[in-house]
């Protein structure tokens, strides 16, 4: 039977790094050994100069389908994910309709299976229609395998509702994830509140609006004993709050997006809406804190908050343009280029740590050993390349990194045993 053999690479997983070839048969890793000879009809993937790691897991993507298929579809988003080295992504529920019923969840999964490029795990809503009032059917959705719930795009504003949601969720083995934003402090906000927005005459999004909800939800998690995952942390004080909560043993996890450790609010001086994102790009001091939080593990995961928008939406005045930027195809390279962390820690934040938070760790982020699901990423940590928006697989072009030289590129991605990306080219 034909196998896929990944030859010449350095295997890197939770147990460390070693020179090894990896043979894959069907959906499983068949063999890991220093040298594996390929037989006649085996497909050989060259991994020389590359690391072979468990597939990456993105806790935070917006695939736009159903409802906004002009910006992205599950297929195009899955292709971008595969090219970025992701074998699983968590699809945020702010679609139209939102992921608050079994039928929408099943639709997303069906589309993802048809695309066959990566696993798409739909996140459920915390409240019906993400309106912050009535709880979504956690039990029913949890029974169908949904493990992460969030109203992302909106924070759950009412502390009473959030408390009840956490209490109700606790016995179900699911995790609630919060978009931390006190809405009454960010009315009309376009960018970080500080000296830059003051100069440009743009309404500001104060760091406090995030930090107050980070604090609130840490305390609600402490009170209820239910785990809480904090999405896209952007401020220094948020990192500090999470660090201290973790020291107290609160069941809190957190993620940060590459744009929050690579770009500052100064980019908005161009008035280019490609830099508008929610939460907003902040200051150099915040970037330093996010990097430190990733380095010491306070922030568990790198998540992209991949948020496609069509060109006409971003060619609008800043206050009218929607927030969000692409992320899937640049996350690895930005992390390798900008983070001063051991490679193994970067891969941990891209793979097994988010896999555990998403409840996907039975098939993703596993040790690379015989018998494990073959979800793998092969990347060259030193390959240099430049971001060309038109070459991205996403339907949209709203990357803030056009023309930026980066280091680190995915060569092959193996999803459920199939080489969906070979030599940087999507196979499906």
């Amino acid at each position, binding site marked *: 039977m034909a196998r896929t053999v990944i030859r010449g690479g350095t295997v890197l997983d939770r147990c460390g790094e070693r020179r090894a070839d990896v043979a894959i048969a069907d959906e499983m890793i068949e063999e890991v050994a220093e040298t594996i000879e390929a037989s006649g009809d085996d497909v050989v993937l060259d991994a020389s100069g590359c690391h072979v790691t468990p597939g990456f897991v993105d806790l935070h993507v917006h695939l736009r389908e159903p409802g906004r298929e002009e910006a992205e579809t599950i297929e195009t988003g899955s292709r971008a994910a595969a090219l970025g080295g992701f074998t699983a992504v968590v699809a945020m529920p702010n679609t139209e309709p939102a992921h608050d019923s079994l039928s929408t969840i099943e639709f997303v999964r069906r589309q993802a299976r048809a695309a066959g490029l990566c696993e798409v795990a739909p996140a459920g809503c915390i409240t019906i229609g993400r309106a912050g009032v009535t709880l979504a059917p956690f039990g029913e959705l949890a029974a169908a395998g949904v493990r992460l719930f969030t109203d992302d795009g909106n924070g759950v504003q009412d502390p009473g509702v959030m408390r009840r949601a956490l209490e109700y969720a606790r016995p179900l083995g699911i995790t609630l994830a919060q978009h931390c934003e006190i809405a009454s402090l960010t009315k009309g906000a376009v960018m970080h509140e500080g*000296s830059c927005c*003051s100069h*440009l*005459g743009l309404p500001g999004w104060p760091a406090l609006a995030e930090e107050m909800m980070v604090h609130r939800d840490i305390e609600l998690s402490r009170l209820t004993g239910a785990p809480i995952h904090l999405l896209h942390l952007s401020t220094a004080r948020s990192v500090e709050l999470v660090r201290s909560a973790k020291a107290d043993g609160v069941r809190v996890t957190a993620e940060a997006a590459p744009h929050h450790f690579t770009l500052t609010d100064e980019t908005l001086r161009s008035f*280019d809406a490609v830099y508008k994102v929610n939460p907003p790009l902040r200051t150099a001091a915040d970037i330093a804190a996010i990097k430190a939080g990733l380095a010491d593990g306070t922030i568990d995961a790198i998540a992209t908050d991949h948020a496609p928008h069509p060109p006409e939406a971003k060619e609008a*005045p800043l206050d009218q343009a929607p927030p969000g930027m692409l992320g899937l195809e640049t996350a690895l390279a930005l992390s390798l280029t900008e983070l001063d962390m051991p490679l193994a820690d970067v891969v941990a934040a891209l793979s097994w740590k988010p896999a555990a938070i998403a409840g996907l760790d039975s098939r993703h982020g596993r040790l690379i050993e015989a018998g494990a699901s073959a979800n793998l990423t092969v990347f060259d940590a030193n390959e240099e390349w430049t971001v060309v928006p038109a070459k991205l697989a996403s339907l949209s072009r709203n990357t803030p990194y056009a023309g930026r030289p980066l280091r680190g590129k995915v060569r092959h991605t193996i999803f459920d045993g199939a080489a969906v990306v070979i030599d940087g080219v999507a196979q499906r």
Partner: protein
Amino acid sequence: MKHLLDIDSLKADDIHHLMALTDHMVEVNQRPIPKVPALRGKTVVSIFFEDSTRTRTSFDTAARRLSADVMNFAVSSSSVNKGESLRDTIETVSAMGVDAFVIRHGSSGAAQQITQWTNASVVNAGDGWHQHPTQALLDCYTIRTHLNRREGFDGLRIAIVGDIKHSRVARSDIQAFTRLGALVTVVAPPTLLPPSMDGWPVEVSHDLDAIVPEVDVLYLLRMQRERMTDALVPSLREYTSLYGLTPARARTLSPHALVMHPGPMNRGVEMAVDPSELPGSVIIHQVTNGVAVRMAVLFELLGSGSGLKAEET
């Protein structure tokens, strides 16, 4: 100079140059036939996404006195209301052959954004809370003329009073006045100041009574009624009592001090006296100078360097 988008990108010398050019335009405007052929054959299109009859009229008058062809793009009746994007609108009008856009938009940065979609010059006639550079230039010209400050504003004390946070006039004036050497104090409740004034070359005060007798120029900003609904001030009445120019405060003005306002005034709110009874009010001169300053700006952007001498052609 290709565009006029903000004051920030002008040096003091640039402002002085435009002031000197404005002197010429004032002279043109005093002629029996106030019209020169300087911009004959040039097309100036004004697009006002936000209503402002006075600014639009001022620009149109300026362009016509320089013999430019003036097109008004009426936003309310145009495709903008049919879902056309800002980019499409600019590219479409640009394709008709345009030398300069005069643009007013409710969003900060809109004027800068459109420069990437046209080869024409762009004059920012006010964008959101960001900038209104011709207002600042006409304010400078008015101060320069009335206080006889041709060389600059060194040591001049100017107070700008009111809603700094939401004011493109304040942002532009602060930059222009300080670039010319003035000492600027902004007077406002903290809720009407920008969230951070780090690096702003101004003093901040909340005590108008202490400031009024000290200044050479008292510049009042328009107080928007919607600020009350955002809980930024308790009431217009309270605003007037703390930050309005009341008769009692007006009596403490120094005899030579100018009183200025970008218009339109909220009588009884920031302007709680009859401005015609204020000897130092130059508000109407601001309007007059607006035409000359805008002529200077259009000429600077589009002119060939000749053509001002109408009498010789």
